[in-house]
């Protein structure tokens, strides 16, 4: 060979390269977390002022139409710190929030945080299951649809998902409840219509089955509404990937079609879908509010729904804040996960 190519590649560079990639992720995560904290700060601030814009006197809201003496009102007002100047109230609010003291619910007369923590597991169970099922279904169908765009399966699955996508969540929930909960015609109403478990819930495995039965309808409702977007994203990102030259390279290498799909197209197409899963957590949360209200699911959504009905403003405020914060954190996680998964972004 006449030209020695690259034989003197600096080894130090390699170390620096991989080192900086790892450090890069950490730094990236730190930056993102910083951004998230800023967003959370904005949520806290926004919440405070949003709920201060409320019509009416919060104390009277607390009284809820019951008769209270002026003394009682005064006392409540002092207890809630509403007699202080706005700025001081804000400072108290921030300090309280940072101490995780979200105030006391008007309705339940208990710390909002306790109420939230009690109901968090149920929501995580419901939304988590729904998310997993929806993602699984969406990705599977999206992959099949995108692999043969315009084919029978594509038209069928895209069409179906779009129909579900257009259905208001509550409507779907109510229909499911009517059809599979109470039973119509030959369809027996085998599924429970409310709650997370039976009153006389058995123990052990039977308990798990009992909860599973209770989850069927709410999960179906949530899945029906959200899976379309995973399908569509998976489909289009697969289409994108299929247009890439590396797919042709893979085929030129003599890979079978299913190998091309499994080893190249799908993993790459999954990346944007994965991000979307986290990004759209907010959507799932919105769905949870409706679904939990319909199926009396003892979760955060139900709590929030009830808070709105009452209206119980501290509870609304606390739940709203928590929902926002969790969505923000999920988004941050999405950014970081994407960063870890995709080597391109990792070192950019």
């Amino acid at each position, binding site marked *: 060979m006449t030209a020695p190519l690259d034989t003197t590649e600096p080894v130090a560079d390699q170390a620096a390269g991989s080192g900086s990639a790892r450090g890069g992720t950490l730094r990236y995560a730190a930056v993102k977390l910083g951004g998230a904290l800023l967003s959370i700060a904005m949520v806290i601030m926004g919440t405070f002022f949003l709920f201060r814009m409320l019509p009416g006197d919060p104390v009277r809201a607390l009284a809820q139409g019951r008769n209270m003496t002026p003394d009682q009102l005064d006392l409540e007002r002092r207890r809630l710190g509403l007699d202080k100047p706005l700025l001081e109230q804000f400072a108290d609010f921030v300090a309280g929030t940072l101490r995780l003291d979200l105030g006391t619910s008007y309705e339940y007369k208990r710390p909002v945080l306790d109420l939230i923590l009690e109901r968090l597991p149920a929501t995580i169970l419901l939304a988590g299951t729904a998310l997993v099922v929806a993602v699984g279904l969406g990705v599977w169908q999206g992959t099949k649809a995108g692999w043969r765009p315009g084919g029978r399966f594509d038209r069928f699955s895209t069409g179906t998902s779009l129909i579900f996508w257009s259905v208001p969540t509550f409507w779907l929930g109510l229909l499911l409840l009517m059809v599979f909960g109470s039973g119509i015609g030959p369809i027996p109403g085998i599924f429970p219509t409310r709650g997370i478990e039976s009153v006389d819930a058995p123990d052990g495995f039977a308990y798990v089955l009992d909860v599973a039965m209770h989850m069927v309808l709410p999960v179906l409702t949530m899945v029906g509404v959200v899976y379309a977007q995973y399908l569509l994203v998976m489909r289009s990102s697969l289409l994108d990937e299929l247009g890439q030259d590396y797919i042709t390279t893979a085929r030129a290498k003599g890979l079978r079609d299913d190998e091309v799909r499994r080893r190249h197209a799908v993993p790459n197409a999954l990346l944007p879908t994965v991000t979307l899963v986290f990004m759209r957590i907010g959507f799932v949360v919105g769905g949870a509010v409706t679904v939990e209200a319909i199926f009396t699911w003892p979760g955060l959504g139900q709590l929030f729904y009830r808070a709105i*009905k009452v209206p119980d403003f501290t509870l609304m405020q606390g739940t709203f804040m928590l929902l926002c914060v969790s969505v923000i954190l999920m988004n941050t996680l999405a950014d970081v996960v994407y960063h870890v998964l995709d080597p391109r972004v990792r070192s950019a």
Partner: protein
Amino acid sequence: MTTMAWTRRRMAAGRFWNQFRKQRAGVAGLTLLVVAAVLAVLAPVFLDEDVTSVVEGTGQKFAAPGVDGLLGTDESGRSILELIWWGAGTSLLIGFLAAVLAMVIGTLVGIVAGHFRGWFGALLMRLTDWFLVLPSLVTALVLAAILGGSMVTIIVAIGVTAWPSTARLIRAQTLAVEARPYIERSKALGAGHWHIMSRHVLPNVAPLLLASTTLEVASAIVTESTLAFLGVSSDKTSWGTMLRGSYDWNAASNGAWWYILIPGLCIVAVVMAFTLVGRALEVVLNPRLR
């Protein structure tokens, strides 16, 4: 010269239409939309507000289709058909106005944030990101609950929670457009900010905007009905408030399936139509998806 330009524009529109026509689903959606919109606009010609009046309601309560009016009646004996027809305007209007509101805010913020790359753009983007992560239904619910239920509030609540995704999209597009060499060329010709934003960026994002607005209308209509279900609705009869009524008056247990199914199916159909049109537009306007 100008007539020529018009001819050209018409031809371009024709080309666009020819491409759109090939999207069968999109055409189906568009047909449905046109029919729905025409019916909604014509509603006041054939009906008047009295169809929503419970005092005038003459029919039997929860009459099955065929007995009293074509599609049955509701809990006050009002004709579902007439209510649907009358309420179409409200539903479409809320969906449309909310989407337009979202689009206007989103476009403004998106273009400005994409154009001014400095701290100002960064700040705007932070704000957008912040709004973007807020769970929109929850936020809309809180907003509507705080502002009180009227048509304007509902529109504002939906619009204000829906703009960030548009802003994101538009900003990304703006950045892409601004990275194109013709922007550099324009600058080299002496163009200022306004010129670049209005003559280059806006026209280039416009098609995308059209598609995304269409999709936005769809989701706004769904959101309106969901808000109505969760208890915040405008004071006008819309499909969402009808569904709410069917829920409140337990149409299901009373066997009045028409009261639940018909408004729901109308929503699904119109939303689906918007979605199909939006997707078709996307495909036509964004060849990458073809």
